[in-house]
């Protein structure tokens, strides 16, 4: 048996893009510096040479133009993949995304099959404009789908699903995972369904729900608790809209204790939605208050010391797990 190739998270996205562009002529990429320069993070490196300037389009520095162009071309039957250099600047494209793309099918019955790639997340002193994780805000907009892969395998499989999907999909790729995380990624094409969580590790005592880069923070904390005799079940949601309520509820039935972890800020973060849903559907299963670990409600500091205090760390999560275990 041939061993499966190991790829970085970034390579998995890159390979996925290339594979989809080969498979389907309607697929094209557009964004700032995605062509000649190969993308700010080199995700699209080599695509211009391989597919030519009609399918790899360098755009002006205008997020609303990028998303507006993608929306229009999707309406005309193409499969655009728009790259916003940093997910922070998605706010500039809010109107095209929320007012136009998200509501088009409801208003006119026409589908908008586009993907917006959003490099997100902190951990490298990028400061308040280059480190945010704004996925929660878009889960609040009916008509948009929200995807947050944590592993190279999921990054490629969810990208293929996002391109196939007839709706606008926001694909949040975590910058801090690009080159830090490697994993087995099949060469052949595969898809991963939306709304199906991945059990990162099974456990009996506490359910820990998270996604994106926080999956690794969660795993570090769960390792610590394992050595203290507490078994933590980590659920990687993979997609937030739709999200796998069933998997979370089944786990809570088993453990009766729930910790939710996200890198986005606390208030109105997606953790609040999960907590509310579990209380509505599984109140009589709970043996402890639901806890959330999230970033504080402030912009993200530049200072490495302050950024470390801002982004949830292994010890923060381990502390919360210990409290729940002892409750």
């Amino acid at each position: 048996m041939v061993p499966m190739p190991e790829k970085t998270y970034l390579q998995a996205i890159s390979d996925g893009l290339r594979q989809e562009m080969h498979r389907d002529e309607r697929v094209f990429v557009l964004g700032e510096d995605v062509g000649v320069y190969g993308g700010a993070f080199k995700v699209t490196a080599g695509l211009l040479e391989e597919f030519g300037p009609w399918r790899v389009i360098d755009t002006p520095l205008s997020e609303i133009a990028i998303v507006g162009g993608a929306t229009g071309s999707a309406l005309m039957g193409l499969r655009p993949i728009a790259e916003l250099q940093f997910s922070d600047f998605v706010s500039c494209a809010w109107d095209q995304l929320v007012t136009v793309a998200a509501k088009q099918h409801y208003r006119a019955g026409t589908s908008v099959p586009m993907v917006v790639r959003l490099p997100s997340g902190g951990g490298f002193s990028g400061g308040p404009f280059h480190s945010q994780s704004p996925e929660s805000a878009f889960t609040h907009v009916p008509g948009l789908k929200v995807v947050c892969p944590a592993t190279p395998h999921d990054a490629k499989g969810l990208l293929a699903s996002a391109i196939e999907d007839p709706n606008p999909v926001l694909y949040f790729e975590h910058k801090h995972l690009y080159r830090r995380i490697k994993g087995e990624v099949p060469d052949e094409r595969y898809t991963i369904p939306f709304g199906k969580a991945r059990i990162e590790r099974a456990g009996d005592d506490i359910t820990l729900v998270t996604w994106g880069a926080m999956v690794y923070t969660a795993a570090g904390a769960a390792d610590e608790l394992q050595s203290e005799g507490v078994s933590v079940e980590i659920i990687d949601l993979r997609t937030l809209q739709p999200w796998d309520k069933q998997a979370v509820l089944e786990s809570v039935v088993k453990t009766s204790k729930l910790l939710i972890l996200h890198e986005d800020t606390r208030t109105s973060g997606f953790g609040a939605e999960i907590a509310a849903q579990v209380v509505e559907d599984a109140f009589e299963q709970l043996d402890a208050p639901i806890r959330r670990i999230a970033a504080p409600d402030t912009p993200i500091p530049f200072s490495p010391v302050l950024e470390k205090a801002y982004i949830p760390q292994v010890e923060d999560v381990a502390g919360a797990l210990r409290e729940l275990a002892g409750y």
Partner: protein
Amino acid sequence: MATQTQIEVVMPQMGVSVSEGTIVKWLKSEGQQVAADEPLLEISTDKVDTEVPSPADGVLGSIVTLEGETVAVGTTIALITTVGEALAEPEPEPVSTAIGSGAPDPPEPVAAQLAEPADRTFVSPVVARIAAEHSVDLERVSGSGHGGRVTKKDVLAHIAAATTPEPETVTSKPLPAPVTSSAPSNGDRLEPMSQMRRSIAEHMRRSLDTAAHATTVFEVDMSNVVAIRARLKPEFLERHGVRLTYLAFVARATVEALRNWPWLNAEIRGDEIVTHSYINLCIAVAVDGGKGLVVPAIRNAEGLNLLGMARAIQDVGDRARSKRLKPEDVEGGTFTITNPGGHGSVVGTPIINQPQVAILDTEALVKRPVVISDDKGVDAISVRPIMNLCLSFDHRLIDGAYAVQFMAEVRRSLESWGEERY
């Protein structure tokens, strides 16, 4: 200068299930004098129609709820203005200021400020559901969670223990005859456990399962205490009707020493240590001829002198033996003294009264030959009244060095008891 106070008249609760009442008729009008307990109004509820007496002497200041109106129980329906006596010193005239109406704020009720909320054990939703489904009495499940809370695991383990049959023993040895019926054999007597016995059994087992028990024993030379007690005993009895026991001296010495060793007056809640600012000293009292035990607490024992301590011990002991303790008498203890020495016991290993972290055991006062050194270092054998004090402590919180330093202080305090000390 007279002081005025407003007293609220509220819609009374005329029965457990009654939630509202209707004003039928006001018997006084605004501005009229009314005496305490004088009928003030008539009300009608779905249980009874009745007169409501005035709660105080005064003037009916204002009627809030008019005749024919229906309001919830507890709603203010009128205000009565009472007029108090002049204060000893005349108050200055109120100085008008830019803000405020000039009316003094009513004083905060002191009792309400001091009252602490009753400590109620929290039952989580999942535990409540499982207990209901399996008809489990949670009072009988020992809790391993935060503050002794019964966790889901605790209640599941309790159910499993109650329903799992004993594993079959595979053995070639002859087994003792199994107990096949509830009928006692050969004149054995069978009797149900009393509620007290069951709760003692549960508490003792839970304490051993919770605390890491360790016991240390100190010999105390009670010569000074014996002499002083002999002198004070008739005086306490004649003048105060109080029996002065050795226990009172030990309790006083203990309370003083606890001030310097506060972790012994503490409890463990989850992974936090709660150190109490007050000492509620529990005294174990044997009842029913040794077949029962209650442990009432002397509240704020840190504020009692020797007479007060002796009186408090006598009071809780008398009330325990005559079964006149109230539920609150046996709650909220922070440290316990048990006193089995009266029957000659010289060493004990008492079990901690949860959620406390230590228990002191006072043993019999026994005359023993002991070696005494004078100031020149010359040894001599002397006969001294010696009492052993045994302290069981929860080694999870209290280390040996901490426990023995506390005990050394108790011993020092008892051995150096002076005439002037109360």
